């Protein structure tokens, strides 16, 4: 667990700040902004709790074959809709499958959809945002209007429409979520690029004859890592809910492969006879989304010293 923790901490650390103005005396090395952010994050008890829960879910997803007590797709007519017991902690579903094993395996679909689609959205949105912000003019106008157009359709409706046209499959749901989440990152990167463009060091980099892509990569990108980390974490939470929603509607993970959303869909038909089928998958979504939100809020507080004022 500590390795994941360390990785996240390293990632949480913003890159070295631009050279401080000569007036201020050089800071002692252990007091760099990055280290201060890590310390602030580590002191944030709720954020650490969120990080622990996220890590646990990641471990559950990776180790699913080892820890799931039963085969998640094995049906059995002998044990249909059995209430939770010592043999089946979360009960069994309408086909006699073990709900606990399906919740454990379902973590894979959820986390993968959340993380992969947000990574894709960042990979797609950030270059376009940087390009728009640094180039300005018509390029900026076109990219910004396209982002505006996509943002004018609520996230979930856009994802549903895309998934509908792409056809029902987990990969298509992930693609739909990634595309729907992209404009947020275009906006974020564009804003940061505009802010950076006005600074002296970017001015200097350009004056020295660096090509625009190099300026973007070396001087703008490092500065957008902190806000990207915050926005990305919160976007994962939203993407997980979106994946569950699409799977609930039958547009995501296809049966019999387990996913929390499709489990809830099946559960709705047996609410009177087998409420446990509805309780546990939903609880899993709630917990993992809550955890990502806690980490995102904690990162925001840790990385943005200005937010201390309102906290």
């Amino acid at each position, binding site marked *: 667990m500590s390795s994941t923790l360390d990785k996240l901490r390293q990632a949480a650390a913003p890159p070295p700040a631009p050279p401080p103005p000569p007036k201020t005396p050089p800071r002692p090395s252990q007091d760099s902004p990055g280290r201060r952010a890590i310390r602030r994050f580590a002191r944030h008890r709720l954020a650490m709790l969120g990080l622990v829960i996220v890590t646990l879910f990641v471990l559950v997803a990776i180790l699913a074959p080892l820890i799931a007590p039963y085969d998640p797709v094995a049906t059995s007519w002998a044990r249909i809709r059995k209430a939770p017991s010592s043999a089946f902690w979360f009960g069994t579903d309408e086909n006699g499958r073990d709900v606990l094993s399906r919740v454990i395996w379902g973590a894979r679909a959820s986390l993968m959809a959340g993380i992969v689609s947000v990574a894709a959205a960042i990979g797609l949105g950030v270059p376009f945002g940087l390009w728009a912000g640094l180039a300005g003019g018509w390029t900026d106008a076109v990219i910004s209007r396209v982002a505006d157009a*996509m943002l004018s*359709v609520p996230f*979930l*409706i856009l994802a549903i429409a895309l998934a509908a046209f792409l056809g029902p499959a987990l990969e298509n749901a992930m693609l739909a979520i990634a595309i729907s989440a992209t404009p947020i990152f275009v906006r974020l990167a564009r804003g940061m690029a505009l802010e950076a463009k006005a600074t002296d060091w970017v001015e200097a980099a350009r004056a020295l004859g660096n090509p625009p892509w190099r300026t973007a990569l070396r001087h703008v990108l490092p500065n957008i890592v902190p806000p990207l980390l915050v926005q990305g974490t919160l976007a994962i939470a939203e993407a997980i809910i979106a994946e569950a929603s699409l799977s609930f509607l039958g547009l995501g993970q296809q049966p019999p492969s387990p996913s929390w959303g499709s489990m809830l869909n099946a559960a709705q038909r047996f*609410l009177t006879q087998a409420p446990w089928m509805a309780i546990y998958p939903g609880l899993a979504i709630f917990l993992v989304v809550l955890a990502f939100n806690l980490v995102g809020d904690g990162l925001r507080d840790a990385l943005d010293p200005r937010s201390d004022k309102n906290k």
Partner: protein
Amino acid sequence: MGIWLLRRLGQIIPTLLILSVLIFGLQQLMPGDPALILAGEERGDPQVLAEIRAELLLDRPLWQQYLAWLGRVLTGDFGFSWRIRMPVAQLILEKLPVTLQLALMAFVIAVLIGVPLGIVSAVWKDRPVDWAANGAALAGISTPNFWLGIMLILLFSVQLGWLPPSGYVSLFEDPWQSLATTIMPAFVLGNSIAGVLMRHTRAAMLTALSQDYVRTARAKGLTERMVVVKHALRNALIPVVTLGTIELGRLLAGAVLTEQIFTIPGFGKLIVDAVFNRDYPVVQGVVMATALIFVLLSLLADLLYMAINPRLRAS
């Protein structure tokens, strides 16, 4: 003011045009030939297929198809539903009032929960009340809408038997029954934005409470209650009203799953049914209508912002 409105419209129109290209482009993602879907039983007959293609302009180049489609959309004609031979625009107008009732009830619920919680948590910042309110907001934001709906049905319909688990009765038919069928879905929808409203209110109140005029009000001996209600709250509500208007648009997205869970025949159920029936003109129409509503709401938010903020009214 007039110039401002023109400039704003100058932003909105290109945005909507680009959106129309994107929505039209959705068709190209679709696997398979729409003519085959439409032909149904007669898909073996090349004559029928050719007729359908000619009728839908599927035999023309893409840009001609787009322009023809856009021309019809601009006159309010979103085409015909493939499933139920009915104009898409009429379908949308039929379903919209149901969702509107739901959204307005949800909004009232969200304001009743979110704004007071935001106020108390700002006034008693860093006290247990603040922690509890923040925790409640975070839990609300993290709860998947459709799961909350299922849990409420489990509690109030299955266990207690107080409320009907699904269905919808129009407000004009039987107001009481209408309320009984919509209170749970409205709460589910409202819950999704109550947390967001709480956070907005808290942040705005904290900013307002740290202003000089609040210090002055305190210094001249006003009661804390007067300071909070008359001085801080009135100013804090300005951003909350605008942000709240935009959140109203997000309720449309929330309505998709909520209506599905509670089988309410509204706007959200329309798009889901259309998706299942591969009724693509309806999907396109609903997305376009949602975007239009959303854009109009953000315009309304800007106008409200100017209307309630006396400092901006003059300019």
